[in-house]
């Protein structure tokens, strides 16, 4: 199964109303903006139809996909070459990232993907060592829209986090 087909399976979930909206985040989304690097899974951020005020359940997604013959692997479900992790929007930043995600067309492929600025903000928010390492790579190879990024960082109180990141990686003693 090609990558395009994997994306189509995810898109079908949206068309059938099993998910309200999806957007690709994480490493695969970063690939749109930078050189290829090693990443193992595909992060599909989702808004679920019944998520408001209720307990979030991924069951309908798993049911629909296992019916089609795809197999769960721990927290992922393998669709073609990639283990896909469905991540329900877990805070305002990820909700916004899904809402403002853009459609990217490349070759015969079409996918909804987080904007570069949201990827940067999420990496700053999570701030695991691997996020920081990837952020250095992203900022080296891509140019986020500074004004748009600053607005996001201010809105989600991440400006200080960025200052700390800059100090850690770019300040010379």
């Amino acid at each position: 199964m090609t990558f395009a087909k994997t994306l189509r399976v995810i898109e079908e979930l949206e068309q059938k109303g099993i998910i309200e909206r999806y957007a690709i985040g994480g490493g695969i989304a970063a690939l749109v903006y930078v050189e290829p690097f090693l990443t193992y899974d595909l992060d599909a951020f989702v808004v679920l139809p019944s998520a408001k005020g209720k307990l979030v359940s991924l069951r309908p997604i798993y049911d629909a996909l296992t019916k089609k013959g795809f197999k769960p692997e721990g927290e992922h479900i393998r669709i073609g070459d990639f283990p896909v992790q469905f991540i329900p929007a877990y805070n305002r930043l990820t909700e916004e990232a899904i809402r403002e995600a853009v459609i990217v067309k490349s070759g015969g492929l079409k996918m909804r993907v987080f904007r570069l600025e949201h990827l940067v903000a999420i990496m700053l928010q999570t701030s695991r060592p691997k996020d920081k390492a990837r952020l250095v790579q992203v900022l080296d190879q891509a140019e986020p829209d500074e004004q748009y990024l600053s607005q996001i960082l201010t809105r989600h109180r991440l400006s200080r986090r960025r200052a700390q990141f800059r100090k850690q990686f770019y300040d010379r003693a």
Partner: protein
Amino acid sequence: MTERDQAKRIAIRMFTAKCRRRRNLAKLTIEQKVRVVLQMQRMAREISAAREGSRKMRKAGRVSDHK
């Protein structure tokens, strides 16, 4: 060449490499990038399998620890 000239040269070389990388990057489709990622995954798996293999061999005393 002064130290300042050397630093200038290195900066120019780095900037040129960055531009070249960006040009090459723009030529790749996402599908091609994904193919590269899958190849990286295969290589990473092979390396970790080889590491695991040699660890087991060492444990079984069939290969010396000496470098």
